[in-house]
């Protein structure tokens, strides 16, 4: 390829931008419907948190974590997941695209397939989940007994960005696997929607094997658990070395590399089988 990798990435981002802009404009043509969808998205996700609050009206702590601490986990997990869902939420439809043949159409346009899938039907109403998560997170930040300084604030920020990347990778990976197994979207949902629900609770309420699984196999623990344990001054239930708490960005980067390779392999497999 004569075009450099950077030029391709820049073109991909630009294409993502104008496809998304088109979808936003088209949703905004029906403002009332958009407002309702946004409110519904906000309300349904809020019910999640209401369940946690109800639990705390009966108990003092959950797995040794107080309400503000659980709210912090909830908020970081929700926002990270919400960002991934907003920007990359279309990947579960790949199986359907392969089945009905619309995948071919994407291959015939001069924009990377990954970008086209990511931007397709971009839905701003997903901001509902993010804003709800952000509200819970903000509330927890004021309630928590944490010494806030530049370092800890930066840690929260890095944690959300890397968390979003990790969730995003799970979305894309789940999509890529559908090139081989077209009905895999439910498996993907288990990791995405299931994953975010899991991370909304402290790791101490789960069995160690499960925690190990989401640390070493599907590294969801790096979305919020690991860095949050450090911020909240808690012990790691697995007793891992301290630097692991800061590993989230590196894990996110590794996930992106692996995901990129799997995606390319998936697309290549599709182009040789066509089914």
């Amino acid at each position, binding site marked *: 390829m004569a075009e450099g990798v950077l030029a391709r990435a820049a073109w991909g981002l630009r*294409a993502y931008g*104008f*496809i998304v802009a088109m979808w936003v404009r088209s949703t905004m043509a029906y403002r009332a419907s958009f407002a309702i969808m946004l409110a519904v998205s906000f309300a349904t996700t809020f019910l999640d948190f209401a369940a946690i609050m109800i639990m705390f009206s009966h108990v003092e702590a959950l797995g040794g974590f107080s309400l503000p601490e659980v709210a912090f986990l909830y908020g970081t997990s929700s926002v990270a997941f919400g960002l991934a869902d907003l920007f990359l939420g279309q990947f579960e439809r790949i199986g359907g695209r392969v089945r009905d*043949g619309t995948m071919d*159409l994407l*291959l015939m346009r*001069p924009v990377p397939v990954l970008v086209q899938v990511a931007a397709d039907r971009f839905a701003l109403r997903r901001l509902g989940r993010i804003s709800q998560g952000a509200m819970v997170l903000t509330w927890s930040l004021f309630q928590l007994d944490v010494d806030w300084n530049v370092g800890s604030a930066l840690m929260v920020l890095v944690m959300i960005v890397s968390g979003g990347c990790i969730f995003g990778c799970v979305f894309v990976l789940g999509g890529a696997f559908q090139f081989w197994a077209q009905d895999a979207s439910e498996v993907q949902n288990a990791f995405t929607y299931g994953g975010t629900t899991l991370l909304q609770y402290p790791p101490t309420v789960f069995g160690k094997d499960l925690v190990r699984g989401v640390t070493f196999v599907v590294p969801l623990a790096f979305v919020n658990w690991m860095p949050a344990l450090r911020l909240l001054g808690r012990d790691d239930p697995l007793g891992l070395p301290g630097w692991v708490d800061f590993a989230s960005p590196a894990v996110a980067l590794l996930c992106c590399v692996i995901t990129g390779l799997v995606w390319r392999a998936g697309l290549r497999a599709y182009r040789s*089988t*066509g*089914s």
Partner: protein
Amino acid sequence: MTGEESVDDDGFIDVRELEKVFTVRRRSGFLRRTTSEVRAVDGISFAVPRGEMVGFIGPNGAGKSTTIKMLTGILTPSGGRLRVAGVDPWKERTQLVRRIGVVFGQRTTLWWDLPLRDSYALVKRMYRIPEARYRANLERCVELLELDGLLEVPVRQLSLGQRMRGDITAALLHDPDVLYLDEPTIGLDVISKARVREFLLNLNAEMGTTVLLTTHDLSDIEYLCKRVVVIDHGRLMYDGVLAGLHEVGSSERTLVVDLEREMPPIEGVHGARTVRTEGPRQWLAFPAAASAAPLVSQVAAGYPLVDLSIREPDIEDVIARMYAR
């Protein structure tokens, strides 16, 4: 970029011994699987010069779509050589897609929920079409395909005929050198069909666009293409002018004679046989390549002949006979 000068105009699309083998896995036991090979395209060769219009026909599953998918770079060939405008479609897909346009009769390339105008605006940005060219091309298509008034309508609300015209427009906004049409007239009414055909002829004549179309509707080919390629079981059965199919297909013409009165079936006419009688009218079949004149004189000599006509073989029958072989 490969210069266009280097592309031989006679082999603008150049296909040699093209193959596509699919491995089909089937579950044969609880965990056991058997694999078998399906040769969807089995050594096809042809060349299309720039500006030609070629029709692809063949029964379902003959390998037409697979061939088109390899030509557009969607599918990787298993063997053979393939060049479109001097480019290997599979290796340089992203470069090639800017030079080809594709239209599927069965599904739209447009965005279902967006109005046509927004879809076109998106196409413009994806293909980086300069504003002036975009506007000129859009205006031309809107006028010739009678799309005005439809530009603000979401694609899902368009009728099949309107949608097809909308799709053709989308495929042409970036001035492609080659246009692939997969069943472009499927499900269209007579008027829409005529409009689409008219437009394609005009496009080919004025813009010199090379057009490859697959169809089940032979009247499409009769109307549009001088050349037809017949594919069956992944192999090339015929490549040439439409009329030439008759000779290859061992087809028969029919001599229809009206006699003065009802008579027993005509006998003793050399080179023909009576296939049907109905009152005073009789049908005689004879090889398409043979001359009708001696038949007519033989019949006139032995029977009270009132009127006669000759029917050309039905092209569909000819092709059906080819497939059956």
